[in-house]
C-alpha cells in the first residue's frame, strides 16, 4: 500500500467543472422488483469515483445503465450531453465514449489478444487494420503485455486477461471508463497488477467509475466514494471523510464488516 500512498499526491489532480455524466431521478425495475431508486449523480471530467455497497445493492446495475447494458424506466441519463434513450444512434454514440471493464473480463476467446483490441477500432471506428494494430500494440504496451499479443485469451492468467480487457477498452479512446468489480474474479496475487494499471489510468486524468471492494484503492485513488444499499445511494463523500466519519448507520455497519479483518 505504501507505493500507492505515494501516488495519491500526484493524482489529486484537478477535476474539471465540465459534467460528463448526469443521472437525474433514475428508477429501474426488474419486473416488479424496484432495483434502482431515485438515483441522482453528477460526474465531472477527471473524477475517480468508487461505488461500494453490499451485494444486491444495485451498484453494478447503476453503472451498467450508463452504457445501456441495462435499460432504465424513469428519469434521465446524459453522457456528454447526449441523452440515453431508446434511440440507437444515441446508444452507439455513448458506447463509443464509454469503455467498460467487467468482472469476468468478457474477452473474445476465439480472437487473439491483439485482435480483441483491434476489433472495435476496425469495425466501429472504421480504422485501417494497420492503424488499429499500431494502436492496439501501443495500449498492450501500456498494460505491460505486448509479448502476449498473438496469444489467445485462454492462454493468459486472469490478471493478464483483465489487463487485456482494459487495453481493449482504451483502444476506442473512451472519455469515461466504467469498472464493474474488475478484481473480484482474480487470485490475490493478480489483483495488484490490475489495480496498478487502473492507478496509472487515473494518473492520466481518465474519468473513472469503479464498482469495487478494494477499499485501499478507494482510499488512495478515488476523489469520491459512493455507498449504495437497497438500490439507493445512501451516502457519498470524499474518501477520508467517508472512511473516518461515516454518517449513516448502514454505512458504519458496512465499513465495520469489511474493515474488521
Amino acid at each position, binding site marked *: 500500500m505504501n507505493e500507492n500512498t505515494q501516488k495519491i499526491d500526484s493524482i489529486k489532480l484537478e477535476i474539471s467543472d465540465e459534467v460528463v455524466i448526469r443521472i437525474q431521478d433514475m428508477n429501474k425495475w426488474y419486473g416488479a422488483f424496484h432495483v434502482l431508486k431515485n438515483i441522482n449523480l453528477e460526474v465531472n471530467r477527471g473524477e475517480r469515483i468508487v461505488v461500494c455497497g453490499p451485494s444486491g445493492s444495485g451498484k453494478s446495475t447503476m453503472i451498467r445503465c450508463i*452504457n445501456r447494458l441495462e435499460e432504465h424506466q424513469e428519469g434521465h441519463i446524459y453522457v456528454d450531453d447526449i441523452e440515453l434513450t431508446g434511440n440507437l444512434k444515441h446508444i452507439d454514440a455513448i458506447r463509443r465514449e464509454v469503455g467498460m471493464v*467487467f468482472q469476468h473480463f*468478457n474477452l473474445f*476467446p476465439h480472437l487473439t489478444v491483439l485482435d480483441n483490441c483491434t476489433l472495435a477500432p476496425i*469495425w466501429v471506428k472504421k480504422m485501417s487494420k494497420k492503424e488499429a494494430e499500431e494502436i492496439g500494440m501501443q495500449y498492450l504496451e501500456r498494460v505491460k503485455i505486448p509479448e502476449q499479443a498473438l496469444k*489467445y485469451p*485462454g492462454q493468459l492468467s486472469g490478471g493478464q486477461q483483465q489487463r487485456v480487457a482494459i487495453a481493449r*477498452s482504451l483502444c476506442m479512446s473512451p472519455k469515461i471508463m466504467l469498472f464493474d468489480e474488475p478484481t473480484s474474479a482474480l487470485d490475490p496475487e493478480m489483483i495488484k497488477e490490475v489495480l496498478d494499471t487502473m492507478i496509472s489510468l487515473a494518473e492520466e486524468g481518465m474519468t473513472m467509475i469503479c464498482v469495487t471492494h478494494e477499499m485501499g484503492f478507494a482510499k488512495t485513488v478515488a476523489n469520491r466514494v459512493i455507498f449504495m444499499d437497497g438500490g439507493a445511494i445512501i451516502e457519498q463523500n470524499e474518501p477520508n471523510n467517508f472512511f473516518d466519519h461515516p454518517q449513516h448507520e448502514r454505512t458504519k455497519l458496512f465499513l465495520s464488516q469489511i474493515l474488521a479483518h
Partner: protein
Amino acid sequence: MGDNNRTNYGIVNAKPIADRDAPISTTGFIGWLRENLFSSVGNSILTIIGLLFIAYTVPSILNWTLFDAVWSGGADACRENPHAACWTFAGSWWEFFLYGFYDRTQRWRIDLVLWVLYVGVAFVVVDDDVRKTRPTSTILGFFIAIVSMVFMSLMIQHGAPVMWTMAATLITVGLVIWAWGLPNGRSRLGLLLLFAYPVLVFFMLGGGVLGLSKIATSDWGGFSLTLVIAITGIVASLPIGILLALGRRSDMPVLRLVSTLFIEFWRGVPLITVLFMANFMLPLFAPEGANIDQLLRALIGVALFSSAYMAEVVRGGLQAISKGQYEGAMSLGLSYWKMMGLIVMPQALKIVIPGIVNTFIGLFKDTTLVLIIGLLDFLSSVQTASTNPDWSIRSVPYSGYIFVAFIFWLHCYGMARYSQHLEDKLNTGHKR
C-alpha cells in the same frame, strides 16, 4: 519462527525427486492387453467370444465382397458365380448411376461440374499453412492433377466441344493457381465456390445459355442428381437456419413467433410428407397453367426442411454463449449484426460443428427419399438397373446396395473427418 519447540515440524524438501519408469505391468503391449482385453474374468471371456465371432464372420465377408467377387466381364460372369459380389454390375452401369437419363451427348456438362466440385473441395479442405508444407502440397497437387485428368478424359469421351474442355481446364486450374498464392486462398476460394457453384451447376446442367441445349430436370438423375439436391440443401440450410435461430431468440415478439412456428412446422412433419405435398398437392393449389418444376419443388422442400433442423442446431450454439460476450461486444459499440457476425456466431457455430455436420450428413442421405416422388436419384438408379432382365442375378441387388452404401459412406465419412479437423483447428478457447 522463533518457536524452538516446534522446529521438528519444519520440513523442507530441498532435492527434487527424479522420475522413475512405470512398472512393466502398466505399460507396453502386455500392459495394454491386460488393461483393455483381460482386465477381469468376465472381460476375458467376452474377448475370446469376440475373437471367435470375428474369426467366424470376417473371412466369409471378405470372400464374398473381395476374393470370390466378380471384378471383370459382363452379366454372364456374375451368373456363373452367383454366391459372391458382382462388381461388374457397377462397372457396366456406372454411367447410368452417375448421370441417370441425362442426354448422352451432353454428359460432359456434368463432368465439368463434378470436376470443379471435387477439385474445389480438395483445395478448400486443406488449410493454407499446411498447404505450403512439402508433403501436403505434393499430395494435393497430385490429387488435383489426377481428378483433373479423370474428368478431362471423361469430358472428351462424352464429346465435349474443345472450347468447353479448354474453358473447364482454364477455370479449374486457374482458380487453384489463383487461390494457391493468396494469403487466405482457402477461404476466398471457398466463399467464391459457395456462391458461384450453385449458379454454375444450374446453368451447366439446365442449359439454355451460351449455346447449351436445354435439358429438362426430369432427365437429370443418378449420383449427380443426389449431389444437386444435397448441395442445394446444404448451401441453403445454413444461412436460413442461422436467420431462423436468430429470429427465434429475438426480442421482437412477432419475429420470434413467426420463426418458432416455421421451425416447429417443418420439424414436425416427415420429409416424405413434405416431398409428397410438394409434388402432388402444390399443383392442386397452384393457379391453372403455373407449372413449377418438379425438381425445384423437391429442392425447396428439402431446403426448408433442413433449415428448420439447422435452426435448432444453431440455437443450441447460441445458448452456450455467455451473456458476457454480448455485453463485451455491446460495450465496445458493436451493432447487433456486427456483434452476431464477429463475436457470437463464430463461437456458437464452432461449438455446434458436430451438430451442423450431423445435419448435413443426415440431409445427404435423406436425399434418397426423393425416389418416392419419382425422381431418379442415385439409389433409385441402382435399383432400376438391378431390375434389368439381363442382370436378374441373385447377387446383383446386394452388390448394388453395397455399392450405394459405399459411395454414400465415402462422402459422409469425408464430411465427418473434415468436421473433426475443423473442431481441432478452431479450438482456441482452452489451448494452453
